[in-house]
């Protein structure tokens, strides 16, 4: 069977964003869509192929998928060093509106990986009417811990590459005292670092009304406590999928386990909502009126 069509699009907004739409074959009977929210820096690079595979897989299940680059990343315009999480949150919301308006998606979900998971979660809370469900793959739950992990990577790299001159304090100083901070080889501003540090998904209010799947990916058989707590907070389900953490790997990865587990959950959701005849949160027509670009 040939691959479903893919289309390069420009997502309108304050800064047009580069996106790829993975269309369903024929007309999607349920008009479901999923917006992919990418991880950050090296994790984005390593995860790219798996996310492409995931989008191609989900569109065969009648879910239109949109992958896009936040401003200043990938093929989207803008300066990486000027990026902030607030701007990327705006980008997610712009892409979500685009899916409703231009792609006629009636039931919309956000799929976020790592930092993209944290952003997807925040976007769903920012505009609850826009997002129907959430899929969070190994989301960054606590920004401080995420930055700490990055510092550790730097410590380990420095330790392995420069044994004699290795000085943990110096590595730490580069991370916390510079105005432009080296995040795994990507320059980010002190402001961006502060915004990442402020991420605390367990501190979100308990009011996202849509179904949520939280997936921990790794060697565990059961999700660790923070992932379970996040799922409980969001009224969703947490699962553990035994698979290599593909966002931290260079090399051949079999993406099937996490994709298939997610598809299973989506199929259950589709069946349950079809049964309940759930109506979309926003009528596409009304939304088109709301976000019609100024002329």
């Amino acid at each position, binding site marked *: 069977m040939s691959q479903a069509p893919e289309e390069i699009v420009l997502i309108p907004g304050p800064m047009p964003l580069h996106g790829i739409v993975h269309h369903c074959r024929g007309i999607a009977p349920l008009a479901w869509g999923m917006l992919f929210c990418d991880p950050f820096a090296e994790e984005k690079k390593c995860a790219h192929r798996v996310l492409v595979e995931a989008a191609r897989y989900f569109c065969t299940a009648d879910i239109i998928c949109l992958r896009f680059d936040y401003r200043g990343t990938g093929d989207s315009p803008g300066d990486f060093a000027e990026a902030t999480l607030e701007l990327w949150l705006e980008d997610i919301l712009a892409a979500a509106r685009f899916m409703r308006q231009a792609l006629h998606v009636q039931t919309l979900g956000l799929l976020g990986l790592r930092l993209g998971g944290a952003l997807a979660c925040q976007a769903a809370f920012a505009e609850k009417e826009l997002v129907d469900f959430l899929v969070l793959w190994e989301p960054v739950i606590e920004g401080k811990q995420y930055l700490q992990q990055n510092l550790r990577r730097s410590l380990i790299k420095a330790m392995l590459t420069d044994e004699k001159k290795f000085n943990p304090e110096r590595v*730490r100083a580069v991370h916390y005292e510079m105005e432009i901070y080296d995040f795994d080889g990507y320059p980010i501003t002190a402001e961006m670092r502060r915004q990442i540090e402020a991420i605390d998904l367990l501190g979100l209010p308990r009011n996202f009304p849509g179904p949520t799947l939280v997936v921990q990916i790794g060697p565990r058989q059961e999700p660790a406590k923070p992932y379970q707590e996040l799922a409980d907070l969001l009224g969703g389900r947490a699962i553990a999928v035994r698979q290599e953490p593909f966002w931290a790997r260079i090399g051949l990865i079999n993406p099937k386990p996490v994709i298939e587990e997610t598809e299973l959950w989506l199929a259950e959701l589709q069946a349950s909502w079809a049964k309940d005849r759930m109506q979309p949160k926003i009528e596409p027509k009304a939304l088109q009126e709301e976000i019609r670009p100024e002329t």
Partner: protein
Amino acid sequence: METYNIDSVNLFEIVVGLEEEFEITLQDADFSVETFSTVANIAAFVEQKRSEEQ
């Protein structure tokens, strides 16, 4: 580390795994070439951290 062909990605995972499995928290100052140079050194380090944190 050379014996087992451990690179920075592997070592990062070892550190995360040690923290999860033994419920310890490594501080920046805990990172040293000597600590991670042999399996025996890692085991001794974990024992020491566990007794300190109990």
